[in-house]
């Protein structure tokens, strides 16, 4: 009889573990937010993290956007030419980049770079007792470690995505005018005509949300890691995977809310 019930027991255990994890994450998020709204904020650490997350991510985000924008223009040109509709290239490129690809690809690239680094750094600090040491030196680890990371990511991601959007459109423009023979002036005019304010706003909102999740997942997994080198490795992997999933999921939700009707 017990052998028969074993599959149900496994389902139950997994479900309980998942609930415990969600509860722990919710508590971590609530603590983080409560520390963000209560002074003091370590401004110097915030600036350092903004530099780390924002400035040093520019090359990878810029290149991603440039190549994606160019490839997108090429594909749309090929697809559009079947209906003699090559002129849609600038419009579709700018909408696709600003609404979806800029924030999502930018977010994913930054998550790969930043969530992993945060999880590894905080995880190592956890297993070598540096986080406990902070507490004994009357410094709150949330204020000192987590808040600067989450705030910096929340602030810099929209800026990064803004750059990604511009560079992405530039990629489409370059391949459109240099290779596909589209008129440069017309290209820019169509781009500007197609773009609406709501596109840019939703893009920035998405970026801020992604930025929050990138740093939250990196900090959460690092802060709660255990079990030496292997534990830190696991924390790093989990941070990146969960940041990716949170980005894609929240992107879907925001897209449905903003453009669904």
């Amino acid at each position, binding site marked *: 009889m017990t052998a028969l019930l074993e599959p149900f027991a496994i389902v139950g255990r997994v479900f309980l573990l998942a609930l415990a994890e969600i509860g722990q994450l919710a508590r971590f998020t609530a603590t983080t937010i409560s520390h963000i709204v209560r002074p003091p904020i370590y401004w110097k650490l915030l600036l350092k993290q903004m530099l780390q997350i924002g400035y040093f991510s520019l090359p990878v985000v810029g290149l991603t956007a440039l190549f994606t924008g160019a490839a997108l223009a090429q594909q749309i040109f090929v697809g559009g030419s079947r209906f003699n509709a090559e002129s849609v290239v600038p419009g579709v490129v700018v909408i696709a980049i600003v609404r979806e690809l800029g924030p999502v690809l930018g977010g994913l690239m930054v998550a790969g770079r930043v969530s992993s680094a945060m999880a590894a750094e905080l995880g190592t*600090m956890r297993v070598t007792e540096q986080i406990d040491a902070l*507490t004994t*030196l*009357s*410094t709150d680890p949330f204020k000192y470690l987590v808040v600067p990371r989450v705030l910096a990511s929340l602030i810099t991601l929209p800026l990064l995505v803004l750059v990604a959007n511009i560079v992405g459109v530039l990629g489409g423009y370059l391949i459109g005018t240099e290779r596909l023979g589209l008129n440069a002036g017309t290209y820019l005019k169509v781009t500007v005509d197609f773009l609406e304010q709501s596109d840019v706003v939703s893009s920035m909102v998405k970026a801020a949300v992604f930025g929050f999740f990138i740093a939250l997942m990196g900090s959460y997994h690092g802060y709660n890691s255990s079990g030496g080198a292997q534990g830190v490795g696991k924390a790093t992997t989990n941070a990146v995977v969960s940041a990716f999933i949170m980005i894609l999921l929240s992107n879907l939700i925001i897209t449905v809310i903003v453009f669904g009707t």
Partner: protein
Amino acid sequence: MTENTPMIELRDVKKSFGPKDVLCGLNLHVDRGESLVIIGGSGTGKSVMLKCILGLLKPDHGEIFVDGRDVVQMSNSERKKVLTQFGMLFQGAALFDSMRVWENVAFGLIQGQGMNRKDAHEIAIEKLRRVGLSPDVGDLGPSELSGGMQKRVGLARAIASEPEIIFFDEPTTGLDPIMADVINDLIVECVTDLGATTLSITHDMASARKIADRIAMIYKGEIIWDGPTSTIDTSGNDYVEQFIHGRADGPIQMEILKP
């Protein structure tokens, strides 16, 4: 508080992790200015006890008083104030590897007390000298130091803010016997200088004999013996006897499978 209130007092403290009971009704007191060393094997709850006192872990049951005030029920801001009285030397030194050595030593002064960097730097160099390190060590990174030097920097950091209570978590583990004795001497000197109350956990008997006024033995989450250092050899307690002589046979059975 009056002179008679113990500096640290634990009453019936219990803590479990899942099904595993780590602390099972632990009672302990450390008097003002006293140096108490807790001995006990690995996994007997020594570190968990320290973390409960520091508020890094919350006990499931029981009361913990520091300077007569219950720290378990305290709000975070009150606990932060209490923590300013503490210094702690961690087992692995736990130096911040993103900072230079002197910044590590000065951390509590700069972040905790809001001292300016110039004054804090001076104090840090002074404390480094106190533990036998030259000022130029202050500009190195923690990873450039040997294990013994890291421990000494950890000690300098623990005493930098001149705390009233200092915890030592296995201060000599992982060091050679000579460096271990150097650390022991430094601990005794620094503690005497500050007049601090100290609580140490160790399984190194040489270290315990040197730094303790009083020794207590922890086994399976309870204090099973406690007395002045001079009486440790005549305790008449089988568990203590087995531990201080390091015998595999005796009432304490390690949880290992016999071949």
